[in-house]
């Protein structure tokens, strides 16, 4: 490893540095795509299909073209551009094309069939209403089980049973006997609803032709600017240097913006044709109905345990609802492959058979959403642990303790071949149980029950593979294989530091935490370090920000590049002060000779020297101060235990969260405030999935949750205070020792809440294995169970 720290304690790593992003964002000085002003800006409105499945007979732009302000109308035919085809080199994968505009067939309600360009957003929407769309409705299928039955409407010719991916991910020929002979065999199905990542800023892009440079410039609200550049250049047949993509401030993504949207390519295509600036601002209704959704999964498992609660084996059938098309470039494989590969989570498992499927239905396509299948598989494992404990009359803590991977097991090779680096699985569980007072819980629960109050306590333990590089994506067989990332660190003559990274924050505060990493290496104030991201003209080619990768991968690249530059600073200091290079330490803005107080030179003087007196440098030194580095790690596992206490109102079916505790371990914490913010936001999103959010489609494929009155997002009033405890097990797979943690909150919360709710109502004979646990559903479960009991 490069960059051995020469200082005994960290100056910037671990410091509570206020986010440099916040003053502008909080003062309304944020610069989002919707804030950009351009003379003569045109506005795009999409014409979206009102039905879920149809043959397109005719799209007539004429009525729209007669309206004031309407400049152009485009259809698939008038643009003549290919769609986006995600490719996986895996058996059982069926390639589909995500069209930019539907040509002959509509496969989900809200799919764009035409677009209108007008002088104002108002006129564009008037135009979109006026475009005459002649559709011949076809039968739709919205349930992934029904979609696989013989005779179900078929979305894509090549996909038998509408299966876009069907893979026996791992086999275990002897597992049936192993399960059959067990003391306890559980057969269970777990369901999680389709949800929307719901970034505060919906998808938005502005494309323009740069007449000066003769190139296309696309500002877009994305997590992956370089990937968008490659895609736009591919589709429009331009060399990449003729396309610049900029992600300015981005108001959240959560995965919805880590795939390329057809609309981004469309808007670029229109600007290229018209040679005028064009903007599309997705409204909330479009976002709910037509943007990428996530998390709709049904998992059926058989799991066997010994009488003392040891997990023997799991036979799993994992099925994900892909919606109408594969997202680009990750494909519809992203959820089932993640689920199959990582189902065991933090538990030791030896016998494992798993089939993984992705099924096409007439709904908006799925994309990765924060957590990517980990919320669902954590729900599977954690419900199994609670069910086993209850069936076997054991403590929930004991069952988990007997199965968790232990310190001495690390590095642990999982049953699917994944290598787990060290974590604090048992410690996090113990600490969480202690924080929630698990020891006296049964008595507290009983006492409350005597007062007519139903309290429940639930846990979820999970591990989360983060910061994984090229090999992990390559194992999925992705034609476009993400993974590495780069950083370029450059100091200027005044001592200022500019760092260019290929990742692209969309709210995570990378300008702060990456600056801390570099400041630590260079021994300069964090305020002297500026992070440049999100502009393909200004940054090295990179993969953007998703999959909890930036702190590990960009952080690692930043550390390596910073260390390389620090080495040069030390050489210059040694030269200037005629000291040994090994004795130079960089801190607080000076290069000092260790053990020789007062023997120091300001780092900014070394910067002057490197640029303005380069003739005075040692003979073998190049002028200037810069260093570039890449990092492509194997991946590192962060871990956590979440715990919650809830109260169930049997009258209304409402669940109130009284306490929520997170004990997390993301290795070396770069900025505790940012980590805590990520945990809180993640838990809020996980609570949303557990109790509130669900994209509701009727049988005909109409999305009935098309506004925020119907798609119920919890607010500050519904999200409880979240207590966070930190454990710190540095990762050997990560340059900085940090592990990724952007998704963890979302991963742990659904299982935690579901287990707590079940704990509250288990004595009534109620078992709930489906999220969200809406008041209506829970009330029905309680009623059914109580009626059964009172019945004959």
């Amino acid at each position: 490893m490069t960059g051995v720290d020469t200082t005994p304690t960290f100056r910037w790593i671990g410091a509570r540095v206020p986010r440099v992003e916040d003053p502008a964002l909080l003062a309304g000085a944020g610069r989002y795509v919707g804030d950009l002003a351009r003379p003569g800006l045109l506005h795009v409105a999409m014409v979206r299909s009102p039905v879920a499945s149809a043959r397109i007979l005719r799209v007539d732009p004429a009525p729209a073209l007669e309206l004031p302000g309407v400049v152009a109308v485009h259809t698939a035919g008038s643009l003549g551009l290919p769609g986006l085809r995600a490719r996986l080199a895996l058996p059982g994968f069926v390639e589909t094309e995500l069209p930019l505009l539907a040509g002959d067939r509509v496969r989900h309600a809200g799919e764009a069939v035409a677009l209108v360009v007008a002088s104002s957003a108002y006129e564009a929407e008037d135009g979109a209403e006026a475009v005459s769309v002649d559709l011949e409705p076809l039968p739709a299928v919205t349930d992934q089980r029904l979609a696989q039955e013989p005779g179900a409407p078929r979305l894509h010719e090549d996909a038998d049973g509408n299966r876009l991916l069907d893979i026996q991910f791992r086999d275990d020929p002897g597992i049936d006997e192993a399960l059959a002979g067990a003391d306890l065999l559980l057969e269970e199905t777990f369901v999680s609803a389709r949800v929307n990542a719901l970034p505060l800023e919906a998808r938005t892009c502005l494309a323009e032709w740069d007449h000066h440079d003769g190139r296309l410039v696309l500002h877009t609200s994305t997590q992956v600017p370089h990937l968008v550049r490659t895609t736009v250049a591919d589709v429009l047949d331009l060399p990449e240097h003729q396309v610049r993509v900029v992600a300015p401030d981005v108001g959240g993504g959560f995965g919805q913006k880590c795939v390329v949207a057809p609309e981004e390519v469309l808007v670029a295509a229109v600007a290229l044709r018209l040679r005028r600036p064009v903007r599309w601002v997705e409204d909330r209704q479009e976002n709910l109905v037509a943007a990428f959704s996530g998390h709709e999964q049904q998992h059926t498992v058989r799991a066997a345990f010994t009488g003392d609660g040891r997990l023997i084996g799991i036979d799993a059938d994992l099925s994900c609802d892909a919606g109408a098309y594969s997202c680009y470039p990750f494909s519809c494989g992203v959820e089932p492959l993640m689920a199959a590969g990582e189902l065991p989570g933090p538990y030791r498992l030896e016998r494992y058979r798993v089939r993984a499927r992705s099924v096409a239905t007439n709904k908006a396509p799925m994309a990765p959403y924060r957590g990517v299948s980990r919320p669902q598989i954590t729900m599977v494992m954690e419900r199994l642990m609670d069910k086993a404990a209850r069936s076997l009359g054991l403590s929930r803590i004991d069952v988990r303790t007997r199965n968790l991977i232990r310190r001495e097991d690390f590095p642990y090779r999982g049953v699917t071949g994944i290598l787990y680096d060290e974590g604090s699985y048992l410690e996090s569980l113990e600490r969480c149980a202690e924080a929630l007072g698990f020891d006296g819980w049964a008595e507290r629960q009983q006492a409350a029950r005597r007062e007519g109050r139903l309290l429940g306590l639930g846990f979820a333990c999970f591990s989360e593979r983060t910061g994984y590089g090229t090999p992990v994506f390559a194992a999925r067989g992705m034609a476009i294989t993400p993974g590495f990332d780069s950083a370029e660190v450059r100091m200027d003559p005044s001592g200022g530091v500019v760092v260019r990274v290929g990742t692209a924050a969309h709210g995570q505060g990378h300008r702060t935490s990456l600056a801390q990493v570099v400041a630590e290496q260079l021994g300069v104030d964090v305020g002297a370090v500026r992070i440049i991201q999100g502009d393909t003209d200004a940054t090295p080619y990179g993969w953007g920000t998703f999959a909890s990768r930036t702190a590990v991968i960009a952080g690692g690249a930043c550390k390596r590049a910073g260390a390389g530059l620090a080495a040069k600073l030390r050489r210059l200091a040694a030269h200037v002060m005629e000291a040994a290079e090994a004795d130079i330490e960089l801190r607080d803005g000076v290069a000092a000779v260790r053990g020789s107080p007062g023997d120091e030179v300001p780092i900014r003087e070394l910067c002057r020297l490197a640029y303005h007196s380069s003739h005075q440098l040692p003979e073998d030194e190049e002028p200037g101060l810069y260093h570039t580095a890449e990092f492509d790690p194997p991946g590192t596992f962060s871990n956590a235990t979440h715990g919650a206490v809830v109260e169930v109102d049997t009258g209304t079916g409402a669940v109130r969260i009284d306490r929520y505790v997170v004990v997390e371990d993301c290795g070396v914490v770069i900025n505790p405030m940012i980590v805590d913010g990520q945990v809180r936001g993640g838990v809020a999103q996980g609570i949303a999935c557990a109790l509130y959010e669900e994209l509701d489609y009727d049988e005909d494929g109409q999305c009935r949750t098309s506004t925020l009155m119907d798609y119920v997002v919890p607010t500050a009033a519904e999200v409880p205070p979240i207590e966070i405890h930190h454990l710190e097990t540095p990762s050997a797979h990560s340059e900085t020792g940090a592990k990724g943690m952007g998704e963890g909150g979302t991963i742990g919360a659904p299982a935690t809440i579901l287990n707590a709710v079940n704990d509250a109502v288990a004595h009534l004979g109620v078992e709930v294995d489906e999220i969200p646990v809406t008041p209506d559903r829970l009330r029905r479960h309680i009623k059914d169970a109580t009626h059964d009991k009172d019945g004959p």
Partner: protein
Amino acid sequence: MKPAPFEYHRARSVAEAVDLLERGGEDAKVLAGGQSLVAMMNLRLARPTVLVDINDLPGLSYVLEEDGGLRVGALTRHCQIEHYPGLLEGFAILPEAARWVGHYPIRARGTFGGSIAHADAAAEWCMLALLLDAELVVVGPQGTRTVPADGFFQGLFMTTLAPDEVLTEVRFPRGYSQAAIQEFARRHGDFAIVAAAVRYDLEEGVIRRPRVVLGGVADRPVAVPAVVDVLDGEAPSGELFAEAGRVAATGITPPADIHGSSDYRRDLAQVLVERALSAAAGR
């Protein structure tokens, strides 16, 4: 999410507003706080061709106590009732209900009269108008008329207001010290899935003149007459309130939507009526 084209007028007097509405015809609409109308226009669910903005009308924002009753001007914002200085005798349920109306920005902008004229089936002010025998003062081309709240609500977003009439005031003849409202929504600030408002007088230890109004169980707020027989003349008790809840629930056939099935709404009505009666008894 941009509205279809419309003509916009800002009225300076009630008479001018009525005149503009009359000329605007069937598709003219009053813009008060705009908290429902503007959203519906942006979704193009409402497409008024003429919008008459009454926010500049003088003298329509007030809460006046008069002869034991209360007069509320139509342009009074929800938050003015929420924060009305000094508790009005027998009208504690008004500020209590105001806290259930939307979120603070909605309460700061939305109006009392606008909510009643909009006639959402779960709106607090519509329910209280029925609960407390409100009279609605309406100005139209033929002058001023007063309409009882009972019968005013005709269906989903439908009232007996003519397109060229403006609601200017809501009068509550008297208050009730035993009155309460209970709601259930999945989030604070949402329209209730079901809401129950109750009132009664307590005379010599027994309940007199009881009324129970439910929101969210039909296409308009409804009083539940069957409950009157259960409660009238009885001493308040937990068993009595539970029975009233059961009777209230049997008399309704609520609609289903994605927030709750018909059965669920019936269950909620039962629970909320019981809880509202208990809350009213605790006053």
